[in-house]
């Protein structure tokens, strides 16, 4: 009971300080959506009877001017298909936000990664421009959403290619070619937005966004290596990913300053960097073998000395 009361109190705070309540003063339908979603979330989590009156007092519609909280971690309960209370096209807050941001991407080349683009996107979905108030004014979520979508597209591309190779419809590419093509495919997704991309990069580097942007970057690089067939279970796992991350980042920066037709300078730069990496790994394995030989020599010497000591002691 204590836990339930605590959770309800927390849910009440969430609603008080919820962004939608703060900023969407002029769009009651959206606020109602948030309120009912939060109510349902709470009741789902605890599978309790309908909320009693003390908890309803918590849902104070008057904002207290606090900054919006970060959403809690952990899997969100599913909203759809619950007891027939929702209509069939009910969607979660998260799904709605995804739709708005996807729609907003069309307006980025003109407006940049800004609230204006989001507002335009919301308009095309028939929502109030105040829906842009759900998001940060610097366009963080829009950019992170875009990166996430690009990564998902890349993942899908690589998955399809893997299927084709497995079915024998395509040849398995050598590693350097595979990496080159994967990075090129991913970077080409930036082309429609290339004018505004420097702005996006600087926002992705804001301390508040670094955990998300870093996580997206690392999982993309890990994906590429996974589909390239990397099966390393030793420190190479880290070396390979670090090297590829370096290649990706430097190529991205070159691309931002490239004015050659179809970015051919960028792809040539990429080819050279990948070739460098391949050479480096060969050198590294040679260094390692030499190192191992030296260690074995030393161990042999130590054992010989120890055996000599033992045999002298016995005598």
């Amino acid at each position, binding site marked *: 009971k204590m836990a339930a009361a605590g959770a309800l109190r927390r849910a009440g705070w969430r609603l008080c300080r919820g*962004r939608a309540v703060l900023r969407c003063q002029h769009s009651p339908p959206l606020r109602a959506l948030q309120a009912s979603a939060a109510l349902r979330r709470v009741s789902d989590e605890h599978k309790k009877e309908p909320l009693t009156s003390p908890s309803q007092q918590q849902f104070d519609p008057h904002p207290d001017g606090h900054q919006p909280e970060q959403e809690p971690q952990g899997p969100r309960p599913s909203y759809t298909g619950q007891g027939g209370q929702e209509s069939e096209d009910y969607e979660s807050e998260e799904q709605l936000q995804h739709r708005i941001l996807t729609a907003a991407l069309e307006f980025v080349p003109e407006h940049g990664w800004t609230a204006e683009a989001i507002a335009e996107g919301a308009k095309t979905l028939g929502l109030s421009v105040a829906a842009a108030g759900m998001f940060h004014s610097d366009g963080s979520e829009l950019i992170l959403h875009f990166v*996430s979508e690009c990564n998902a597209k890349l993942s899908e591309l690589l998955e399809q290619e893997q299927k084709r190779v497995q079915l024998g419809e395509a040849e398995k590419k050598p590693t350097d070619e595979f990496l080159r093509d994967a990075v090129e495919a991913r970077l080409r997704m930036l082309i429609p937005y290339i004018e505004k991309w420097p702005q996006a990069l600087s926002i992705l580097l804001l301390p508040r966004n670094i955990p998300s942007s870093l996580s997206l970057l690392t999982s993309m690089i*890990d994906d590429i290596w996974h589909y390239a067939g990397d099966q390393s279970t030793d420190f190479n796992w880290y070396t390979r990913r670090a090297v590829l991350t370096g290649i990706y980042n430097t190529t991205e920066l070159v691309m931002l300053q490239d004015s050659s037709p179809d970015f051919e300078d960028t792809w040539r730069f990429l080819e050279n960097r990948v070739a460098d990496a391949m050479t480096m790994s060969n050198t590294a394995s040679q260094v390692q073998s030499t190192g191992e030989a030296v260690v074995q020599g030393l161990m042999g010497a130590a054992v010989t000395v120890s055996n000599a000591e033992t045999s002298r002691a016995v005598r």
Partner: protein
Amino acid sequence: PPGGGAALRLRSTRAPLEGINKPVLDRIIRVDHAGEYGANRIYAGQMAVLGRSSVGPVIRQMWNQEKTHLKKFNELMVAYRVRPTVLLPFWNVAGFVLGAGTALLGKKGAMACTVAVEESISDHYNNQIRTLMEEDPEKYKELLQVIKQFRDEELEHHDIGIEHDAEA
């Protein structure tokens, strides 16, 4: 932090194997892989010193079993896309030094080391079995089988160590 983060929970593009509690599985496989890798290096260290002594064949046999354990975890690591521990180079050296160091103390030292290490490894495996059973015994059936088998083999090593320690 104040100022909030992104409202959306952005998912990584990796597609985890269906229905698996990835964080728990990741930790389990990573730790086990590190453990078997370390055990390998310990036995390698012991062999380097005591390989030609009377207890050499015993150590070699236990070492071979650890090698198969490590091979299995390498496979699981690739299958579940788990990253290896970043401390591998450290375990490489530390394990070897522990094995060689205790072996330089003689047969008794080596066996005492084996007993201690195998005991803590078995404890560790037992905890993991408990965790997986609490999660979902059906879903993790294959992994549970592997861990149970390995735990039994580690206990064997422990008993062998006691046997030889007592004899010496």
